[in-house]
């Protein structure tokens, strides 16, 4: 497996750190902070600048936004406290719930498909086939395309390229643009997102695969494991940390998608593919309902945070040590 042993250093180290923390958690005496070489000055020099920027750019607007969601501001004027009426309005807003349901459908499909695809590709690409380094780069490249350009390219493909191919070769499913039908339009979003994100998740799974000790696998082979049993009974349980990370990343990214949404479908047809971030943007800026949009954004934050924390918690429970 020499060809496949090119670890992605940072991620492997990250995973090992993860495992270390898991091992230390039950014991109260193992306090990471009190290690012998801990130097406060160095810690601050490295962490403080980023911490300051993080506070100013993310924490402060977050708190201010939270405060705004309890007022009746429209972005520029109106600062009277209205309590929870914005949140009540959001709960009664059918467009919010419609976009929420569409987003859930989108997220479920994306998370499942991305992770399956990334896992399979990572497995193939670490199995020692020829040219696997090139393949890794090739599969990762879609991730480098930014959201808006990605949406525009695929909009062109779905609207013009596939329609032309479909009419020229009489393939009925492509003859009408997929973007004109609500169900198919959602699938275009899913396809584009899966295409983009599988490369990134593949990298994480590769790191996971290369972190599996060869001794375990060899021992299993000697004991007469088939390939399929090797994958399901040994590699998958050992890969749970990677699963946690990938699930967390895909879940949060898919929930927050905006730029691909607006450049690929613009929410059409008939507003059926308006995902939740687009809905928030429209509410805040198009409808001048800044406070209500802020309330929706905060609700989205709570939902994503709850889902992610739950997912990580359950995942940690399933971790297996080598």
């Amino acid at each position: 497996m020499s060809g496949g042993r090119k670890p992605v250093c940072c991620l492997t180290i990250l995973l090992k750190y993860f495992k270390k923390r898991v091992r230390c958690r039950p014991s109260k005496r193992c306090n990471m902070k009190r290690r012998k070489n801990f130097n406060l000055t160095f810690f601050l020099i490295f962490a403080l600048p980023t911490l300051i920027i993080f506070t100013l750019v993310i924490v402060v607007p977050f708190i201010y936004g939270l405060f705004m969601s309890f007022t009746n501001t429209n972005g520029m004027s109106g600062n009277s406290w209205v309590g929870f009426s914005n949140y009540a309005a959001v709960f009664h807003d059918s467009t919010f719930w419609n976009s929420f349901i569409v987003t859930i459908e989108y997220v479920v499909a994306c998370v499942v498909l991305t992770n399956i695809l990334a896992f399979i590709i990572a497995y193939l690409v670490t199995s020692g086939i020829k040219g696997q380094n090139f393949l890794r780069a090739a599969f990762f490249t879609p991730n480098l395309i930014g959201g808006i350009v990605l949406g525009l390219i695929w909009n062109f493909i779905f609207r013009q390229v596939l329609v032309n191919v479909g009419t020229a070769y009489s393939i009925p499913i492509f003859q009408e643009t997929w973007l004109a039908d609500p169900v198919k339009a959602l699938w275009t979003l899913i396809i584009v997102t899966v295409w983009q994100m599988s490369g990134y998740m593949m990298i994480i799974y590769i790191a996971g695969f290369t972190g599996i000790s060869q001794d375990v696998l060899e021992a299993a082979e000697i004991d007469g494991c088939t390939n399929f049993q090797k994958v399901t009974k040994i590699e998958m349980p050992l890969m749970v940390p990677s699963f946690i990370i990938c699930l967390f990343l895909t879940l949060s990214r898919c929930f927050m998608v905006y730029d691909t949404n607006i450049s690929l479908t613009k929410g059409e047809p008939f507003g059926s593919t308006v995902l939740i971030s687009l809905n928030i943007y429209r509410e805040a800026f198009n409808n001048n309902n800044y406070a209500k949009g802020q309330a929706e954004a905060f609700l989205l934050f709570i939902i994503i945070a709850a889902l992610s924390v739950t997912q990580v918690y359950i995942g940690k429970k399933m971790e297996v040590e080598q």
Partner: protein
Amino acid sequence: MKKLHSLVSLLTAAAMVTFSAAGCSSSSSSAASGKSESAAASASDEATSITFFNSKPEIATQLEAAVKTFNSTNKDNITVTVTTLNTSSTEDAVLTSKYASGNPYTISMVDTPDIAVYADKSMDLSDQAWVKNINENMVSALKVDGKIKAFPFAVEGDGLIYNKTTIEKATNETFDPSTVKSLADLEALYKKIQAGGVAAVQISHDDWSLANHFLTTAFDTQDDYTSYISGLKSGSNDISGNETYKGLLDVLNLNMKYNVYKSSPMSSDYTTSDPTNIATGKVAFWFNGEWVMSNVKQFLTGSHANDEFGFLPVFADSKTSTCISAGVTKAIIIDDTKTTDAQKKAANEFLSWFVDDEAGQKALVNDMGIIPAFTNVTLQPSDDLSKSIVSYMKDGNTIPFNTISGDFYTKIGAYMQQYLVGKMDASALSKSINDYFKSSN
């Protein structure tokens, strides 16, 4: 060796922090304004510098050239700096964030419905010299509580665009637009064009086109627009009783019958297939506005380089059989919260330059291709569609349009799209529109 290590790691960390701060974050950065923030300059009379926010990206280059000319020719040492709207953001988003940060532009170009939104922050311009020259049909849109709060920058209009050359090729006879006086005449013409092998009309499925331009004609023709809308909101008015609305649905039905996109109405594309179709003779009619000319021009090459265009009214009712919708779409407001008096004077001088100065008029009409709202500007814009609007304006045959802000165009646009593809019938559409107004505040 250890010292070198720690030095290198320190430098790397510093570099990473700098790059992470300067690099882009993937979260949507909606405030797109960039560099030139020449904020409130010195209060001296020597040099005044004002900032101008342009929300019309299509004229960006020409506007910057005009501003350069003004900066070099004006006698009061005024310097104007233009910032243009980035297409991934919206005018509302940028202006909201500028006002929130306490750093607004001196003058900002806004969509007409937003004049009211920023009215309490804008200067009263009712006593300016150029007010008397505004075309009478265009004044009402600029007024908030009886005071003129904005400078009318661009007039735009929409109607049934026709390509005269395409029609004549398809029907083999010269086309005189004045012979089409009613919907029946239009249908007869469509049949002739269809028989000539050319699709008669194309419908853009975009929600803003169907809702904000096509449907709102039904409200604009009402005698008292404001009370009609409040009637809809209170439920005392029913849109299905609106004569213009019924006529508009007839026009839409006719267009749907002869739509080149009939098999898949949602596949029209405003930037590619629509302008190509009208420019290259695949379609003869298109309901849209004169702003499409800049897109269509790219495709007017070769044998189509000299195609003639014009506007026909939509024939929904008696008023709309002679008039087209035209009004001020972009207006310029002068900030009243953070500008100094010198800046206000400079801003007004800059704006009057477009009305009174020959170089300014030329920049506005010829270079930027904008239809002016002022009667004293005699220059004619160069493209056919703008010329057509100017002639309707001269005859007073325009219906001012009012835009309903908020989620009108996204929600009603979605309903109209469903009607377009046949998912909704006329009664369901009327009910949806009525319910929308009743539930909006």
